[in-house]
């Protein structure tokens, strides 16, 4: 959330609600409606770190609104984030920890763990397929959302292929 808000503010100053709307437009159906409270909490932290500042803007007949803008330090932090390579999603796999450790405890056997996980991944896949269909139907112009869903599906496929490898090797 931090970097997303910094990136939006690097484009132009905005108040909290505008940031929420921008996130919704950009990520579409692929992102659960961002929580406005969470946005304000994050903005507060960014302000404390010196990455953003806020100014009060007077509005006719309404309470002042706080408009946030990015500082030089914030821009630098954003650049660092953009420039550094992004961590792979599966470097520390929790399921693998279970698979390796659970048999030691006598709590579960590996075959059962793999089978349960496979069914779980397949149900997630079904959910993503339905989400993709919904996105195609209701918001086909949002290619970013569709690509994010497709990316999630490809990751899930890789996870399933890997489960198969685990089952072959550990049987």
């Amino acid at each position, binding site marked *: 959330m931090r970097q997303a808000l910094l990136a939006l503010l690097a484009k132009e100053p905005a108040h909290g609600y505008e940031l929420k709307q921008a996130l919704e437009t950009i990520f579409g159906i692929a992102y659960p409606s961002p929580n406005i409270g969470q946005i304000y909490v994050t903005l507060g932290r960014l302000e404390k770190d010196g990455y953003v500042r806020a100014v009060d803007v007077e509005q006719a007949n309404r309470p002042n609104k706080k408009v946030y803008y990015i500082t030089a330090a914030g821009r630098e932090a954003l650049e660092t984030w953009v420039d550094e390579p992004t961590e792979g999603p599966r470097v520390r796999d929790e399921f693998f920890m279970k698979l390796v450790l659970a048999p030691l405890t006598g709590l579960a056997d590996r075959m059962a763990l793999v089978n349960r996980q496979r069914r779980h991944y397949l149900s997630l896949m079904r959910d993503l397929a339905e989400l993709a269909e919904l996105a195609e139907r209701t918001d086909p112009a949002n290619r970013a959302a569709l690509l994010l869903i497709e*990316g999630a599906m490809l990751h899930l*496929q890789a996870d399933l292929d890997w489960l198969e490898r685990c089952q072959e090797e550990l049987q």
Partner: protein
Amino acid sequence: MSDTPVVRVVNLVKIYQTGGLPVPAVRGVDLTVEAGEFVAVTGPSGSGKSTLIHMIGGLDTRTSGEIWLDGRRADTLSESGWAVLRREQIGFVFQFFNLVGNMTVADNVELPALLGGASPRHARERREYLLGELGLADRADAAPAQLSGGEQQRVALARALANQPRLLLADEPTGNLDSRNTRDVLRLLGRVHRQGQTIVLVTHDARVASMADRVVSLLDGQIVDDGAIPRVRRRPPGGAGDVVELRS
């Protein structure tokens, strides 16, 4: 409809005998598929998926065990008995298409319906519908050799469904397809399944497997898992997904 299973396989075994060394490919499989069920078969390469589905379709002989189709014992049928059964009851999508090379796409798809006794008009309408659903309407007059692998694979699916068979068997039917063509195939499979089509399908593609009611996992010729794919919580209609996670 009766509650006789469409497929019932009991302790099915296949041992290939290649030059002296026996290769056990399927080692005691029990499997029941009810009418209208969609079963996906998964498992590593060499785990016996193709051998199993070929035996269920009578394309490979069993070493021992029983195969019952629609309540009739099938494993004891002669070659010609199987041929009749296949023509009347089974649509088969092979991993490597097996289209008839000197016939057009349209004729390939219409042939099973005509052999099954459909009128020429009915066979043509069914063919037009199926090729249309699979985005192949404009390839009807082509020869199979003029088509890409993905196109041939979709024609093979259309051919298998031409006769509205009691049982559809498919071996990796999306193995050669890009993601757009896979979507066409998925949509058609979903549609015929909702219309009551019984399907047993071998696949590595999780999108395909996730459409099934049930997943059977093979390992070394044996079933190691057989069960329903659970439903995750339904998202509210028009609600949002959870693909992107923006950590605070």
